[in-house]
C-alpha cells in the first residue's frame, strides 16, 4: 500500500508548544514518524555564559515553565560540585519540598492533558482543579505560582516559617486525599483502562536502547531513579518508594505518574515534619567559585536532568551544558509509534510528557532518517577537514 504523510503542527490545537510531526501512514497504521524541532530554540547555553552563577539560576529556570525547580536544582548542584560546597540541613529539606511539589504539579498537568487528548475532558477539569492548591502552596513558600526563584548556590533563598508550615499542612491534607481519589479513578475507570492498556508499548529493551529516563523508563520496568540511586539534598533522609511497572504502555505510564504523586505527598509530609525541628541557616555564603568543572543531576518530573558547568575562577561559567530528560525520551516515539493506529498516535506522543522547551537547545532533528543526515553531516565535515588539510599542506 502507498504510504501517506500526515503533517501535525507546528501549530495544532492539541499542542501547547509549537512542534512539527510527520506521520507516515499506510491505511490506518503508522509506519514511521518524523519530527522537526527548533521552534523553541532560545540559546540558553550561550546566554548563560554571559550571566553570573546566581543570574544563570534565573535563566535556567526559564528553560521550561514546568521544570522550573529541576533545572535550577541541577544547576546549583553542578556549581556546588565544583567546590564541594556544603548545604545546611534546613535548606536541603526546603529544596526537596519544592522539588516534590513541582513533581505533583507536573504530573497532575500531564494526567489532565492526557485525559484531554483522549477526549476525557472531565478528568482534565477535575485534575487541574486539584492542581490549583499545589500552586497555592508554591505561592505560600516562594511568593509566585510558577518560576519560584528559590535556589541559590549553597542553599535556598527563602525560609519556610512555622506559620507557613501549618498552612501548607492544610493544603497537603486536601491534596493527598484527592490524589488517592485520582489514583483510583485512573486505575479503576473501565474507559481509561480499555483505552490506554496496550497502547504505544515501549518495551524494556527499547527503553534501555533509547536511554529513556523518568516515568517513561520506569513504566517499562527500568528501575532507575536519581533520587534513590544517587541521592542529593534530603532524599537520603526521607522514605519513599520508586514506582516501577513492567508493561511500558500508556496505561502504565499514567499509573506510574499517579502513584508517584502519592509518593511525593509522603515526601512532602516528612519534609514539613523535619522542618518543624531542623533549625539553622538556610544559605551558606559562597564568595568564590574556584576553577574547575562540575556536574549536577536531579530527577525532574520527566526524568533525569543533567547540567555541566565549567568555571575559570571568575563569577560566570565559561561553559554551561544542559541535557533535559525529554531530549532522550522523545526519540522513543520511533519505537513506540510504529504499527499503532493513527488514533492512538497522539496519546502515545503525549505519553512521554514531552517538553520541547526543555529539549531544544542544541540539536535540531530527531527522527528515523536522522541517522543518515548525521552521517552526511559527519561526512561533509570530514571532507571539509580533508580539503583544508590539503590546502594547508599543499598536496
Amino acid at each position: 500500500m502507498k504510504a501517506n504523510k500526515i503533517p501535525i503542527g507546528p501549530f495544532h490545537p492539541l499542542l501547547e508548544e509549537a512542534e512539527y510531526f510527520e506521520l507516515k501512514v499506510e491505511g490506518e497504521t503508522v509506519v514511521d514518524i518524523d519530527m522537526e524541532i527548533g521552534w523553541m530554540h532560545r540559546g540558553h547555553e550561550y546566554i548563560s555564559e554571559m550571566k553570573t552563577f546566581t543570574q544563570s539560576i534565573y535563566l535556567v529556570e526559564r528553560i521550561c515553565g514546568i521544570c522550573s525547580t529541576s533545572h535550577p536544582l541541577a544547576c546549583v548542584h553542578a556549581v556546588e560540585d565544583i567546590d564541594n560546597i556544603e548545604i545546611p540541613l534546613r535548606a536541603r529539606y526546603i529544596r526537596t519540598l519544592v522539588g516534590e511539589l513541582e513533581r505533583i504539579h507536573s504530573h497532575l498537568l500531564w494526567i489532565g492533558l492526557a485525559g484531554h487528548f483522549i477526549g476525557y475532558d472531565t478528568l482534565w477539569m477535575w485534575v487541574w482543579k486539584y492542581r490549583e492548591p499545589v500552586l497555592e502552596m508554591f505561592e505560600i513558600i516562594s511568593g509566585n505560582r510558577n518560576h519560584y526563584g528559590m535556589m541559590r548556590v549553597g542553599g535556598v533563598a527563602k525560609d519556610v516559617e512555622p506559620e507557613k508550615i501549618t498552612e501548607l499542612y492544610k493544603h497537603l491534607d486536601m491534596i493527598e486525599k484527592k490524589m488517592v481519589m485520582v489514583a483510583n479513578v485512573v486505575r479503576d475507570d473501565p474507559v481509561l483502562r480499555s483505552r490506554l492498556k496496550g497502547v504505544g508499548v515501549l518495551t524494556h529493551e527499547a527503553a534501555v536502547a533509547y536511554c529513556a529516563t523518568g516515568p517513561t523508563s520506569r513504566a517499562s520496568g527500568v528501575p532507575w531513579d536519581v533520587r534513590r540511586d544517587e541521592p542529593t539534598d534530603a532524599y537520603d533522609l526521607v522514605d519513599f518508594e520508586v514506582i516501577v511497572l513492567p508493561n511500558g504502555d500508556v496505561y502504565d505510564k499514567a499509573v506510574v505518574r499517579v502513584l508517584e504523586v502519592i509518593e511525593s505527598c509522603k515526601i512532602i509530609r516528612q519534609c514539613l515534619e523535619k522542618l518543624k525541628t531542623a533549625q539553622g541557616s538556610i544559605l551558606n555564603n559562597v564568595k568564590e567559585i574556584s576553577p574547575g568543572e562540575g556536574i549536577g543531576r536531579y530527577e525532574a518530573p520527566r526524568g533525569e536532568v543533567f547540567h555541566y558547568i565549567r568555571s575559570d575562577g571568575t563569577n560566570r561559567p565559561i561553559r554551561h551544558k544542559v541535557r533535559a530528560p525529554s531530549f532522550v525520551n522523545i526519540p522513543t516515539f520511533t519505537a513506540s509509534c510504529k504499527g499503532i493506529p493513527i488514533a492512538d498516535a497522539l496519546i502515545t506522543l503525549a505519553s512521554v510528557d514531552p517538553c520541547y522547551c526543555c529539549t531544544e537547545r542544541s540539536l535540531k532533528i530527531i527522527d528515523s532518517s536522522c541517522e543518515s543526515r548525521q552521517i552526511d553531516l559527519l561526512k561533509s565535515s570530514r571532507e571539509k577537514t580533508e580539503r583544508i588539510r590539503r590546502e594547508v599542506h599543499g598536496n
Partner: protein
Amino acid sequence: MGWYNKRLAKSLWVFHASGSPCNNCDIEILDLITPRYDIERLGLKLVGSVRHADVLLVTGIFNQKIAPKIKKIYDQAPKPIFVVAIGTCVSSGCCFKDSYNITEKPESIIPIDMFVPGCPPKPEAMIEAVAKLMGVLNG
C-alpha cells in the same frame, strides 16, 4: 465598526499561538479555562483554528524559525483580530534578549494591541486584560 465590536465583545473566541516561550504562560492560559478561573463564563472560548478567532494570544519570544509562522497565522486570521501578548517575553524579551536567535521586535512581525506583563502573568491579570479588552470594544 462600533456596532460590530459591541457584538464581538459578547463572546470573544481566542486562538493561542506560542512563539518560543518557556511554556509557563501557555499553561497559565490553559489554567484560565479550568474550574478555578473558568473564563468561559465571560464568553471566551479557546478555538482550534485562527480562522475562527477574534483574539490571538501570543506568548514567548519570537525566534527566527517561528517568526514567519506567527506572521502567517496573523495573515490567516479574519480581520479585525486583536492581538494580546501574554508575558514579559513578548514585551521586553525577558532574559532572552541577548540571544542570537531572537528577532528584533515582536511588533515588527505582527501588530500587538495589548501587553500583559508578568513572568508568567497571574490568571487574575489575564482576566483583567480580557475585561479591559471588552471595555474597549464596548466603547
